[in-house]
């Protein structure tokens, strides 16, 4: 059942929101927001439950954005949900505004304060453990970056989640192949992320992270698996996905839009609607 049937979560529209916000705020981190758009779209559209459309509902599922740098993608989804308004989109980064450049748990709809990497993972594991202890059927999804997997607490948390049998936990790794200073394989080669999570006791699959059907199917298949094993999806993605001149180029982790690149990006995203 689609929990949000009236919401489309069209990836192109979500990317347009990201571009609007990045341009309004004269800010960066576009590439790493673009790479998780389909992941978040599928989660919000088909899997996350928010009773009464309340971001703080005690019975909600948890979406923990551990890679806090991609937060604009989550804002874009929250805009569709009506949790943030046009004023917040257009006033992004204006003095005194609430939406920051990294995930901040004080914003309803964001679960953790992240950006310092490797934090959200453990907090999400704790939320999943809390749901298990309470006997609740809440599910916890943690979105981590591949570069973030350099952080030790990720693997502490993976050991713990497996040992505690947290079958209500799903980790989605945004494997866009980049970290701050370059390609992950050149800086800290991760080799097979799927095999690593499997070695830690997870059920894991690797899929195309921009294929919404594949994402949905992987999520359903994993939930139908061993109820005592935590799950991991390694989503192969492209940093900057959706706008050709931004794709697979780490410069869009750092570059701000100017009027020309803004227009080009919006044009590309409009074009692809047709």
């Amino acid at each position, binding site marked *: 059942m689609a929990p949000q049937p009236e919401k489309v979560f069209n990836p192109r529209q979500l990317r347009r929101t990201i571009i609007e916000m990045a341009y309004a705020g004269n800010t960066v981190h576009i590439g790493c927001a673009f790479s998780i758009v389909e992941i978040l779209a599928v989660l919000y559209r088909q899997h996350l439950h928010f009773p009464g459309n309340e971001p703080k509902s005690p019975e909600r599922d948890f979406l923990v954005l551990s890679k806090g740098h991609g937060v604009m993608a989550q804002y874009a989804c929250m805009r569709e949900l009506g949790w943030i308004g046009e004023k917040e989109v257009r006033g992004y980064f204006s003095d005194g505004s609430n939406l920051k450049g990294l995930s901040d748990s004080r914003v309803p709809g964001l*679960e953790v304060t992240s950006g310092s990497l490797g*934090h959200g993972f*453990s907090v999400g594991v*704790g939320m999943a*453990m809390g749901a298990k202890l*309470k006997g609740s059927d809440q599910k916890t999804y943690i979105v981590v970056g591949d570069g973030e997997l350099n952080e030790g*607490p990720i693997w*502490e948390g993976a*050991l713990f989640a497996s040992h505690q049998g947290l079958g209500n936990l799903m980790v989605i790794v945004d494997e866009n192949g980049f970290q701050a200073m370059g390609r992950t394989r050149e800086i800290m080669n991760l080799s097979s992320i799927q095999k690593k999570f499997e070695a830690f006791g997870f059920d894991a699959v690797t899929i195309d992270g921009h294929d919404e059907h594949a994402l949905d199917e992987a999520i359903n298949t994993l939930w139908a698996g061993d109820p005592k094993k935590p799950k991991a999806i390694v989503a192969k993605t492209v940093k900057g996905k959706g706008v050709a001149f931004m794709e697979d180029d780490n410069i869009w982790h750092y570059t701000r839009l100017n009027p020309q690149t803004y227009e080009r990006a919006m044009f590309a995203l409009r074009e692809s609607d047709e």
Partner: protein
Amino acid sequence: MRDAFSKTLVRLAKADRNVLLITGDHGYALFDEFRRECPQQYINAGIAEQNMVGVAAGLARQGFRPFVYGLSAFVPVRVVEQIKLDVAHDNLPVVFIGDGAGFVYSHLGTSHQSTEDIACTRSIPNLSILSPSDRFEVEACMEAAYEAGAPIYFRMGKSDRGDVHSAGLPHPVRAIYELRPQANDGIAFFATGSFTKSALALAESHFSDAGVWSVPSIKPLDADAIVSICKKSTAAVVFEEHSIMGGLGAAISEVTSQHCPLPILRIGIEDRFSHYCGTYDYLLKEHGLDQEAIRGKISTFLEKAKPC
């Protein structure tokens, strides 16, 4: 003192099944009773402190009341960022128990000694710091930590130096207790944790005009009480088994420098690590913190001190 800690924790956990004890694979024997009485509320998170604190934050978000236990060298020092970001930022009700603070592990070297922990945590917003001096303060502080429903660092140091109070403390715990009355125009001894006993003994033996106060709440500090005492004092001495930087002595100096400047001697660990190992008493001596050395420091200080 550790017995009081264990028994109070068991009592709190039996009264509220949302209380969870999470340990970083420490507390051998200490938690036997807890594990026997509340096995469902005991989680050994393994030797993985960073994850342990994040998990505690997640559990607190789900309505649980985690008590996170570790040696003070690890909890809080190793996990300062997790405490700041995962717990304190959202004012979550997590109590961090840092055991063995100071020179308790005197033979093990710097790895297990902890004389920076207060300084590392005192500037984190929302986080309170409790540092009991005896078993009665332990019990009262544990209850206060539970009732606060907010982040607490609970510092436990050398635990076998005896009581400083004669009986259990009335509820609720206070931030500061007078243990020994001060003579007119006398000096003030403020002390916390294991060194409260030293302050009392020195007042009795050598500094008869000194009033002695135990300060179990380092943050929040009862600034009004401190200022009021200091206004009646010619000088103050602060005792703690912690660096002279960033601890209770620093906190009191910050308050008095603004409201009531007076000469203050901070008795604690100078800005250095231990070089050698030995018994606890040996290590105190090595750092110039045995009773005789402290007495000498105070005498020298008082000769030079001018009242405010």
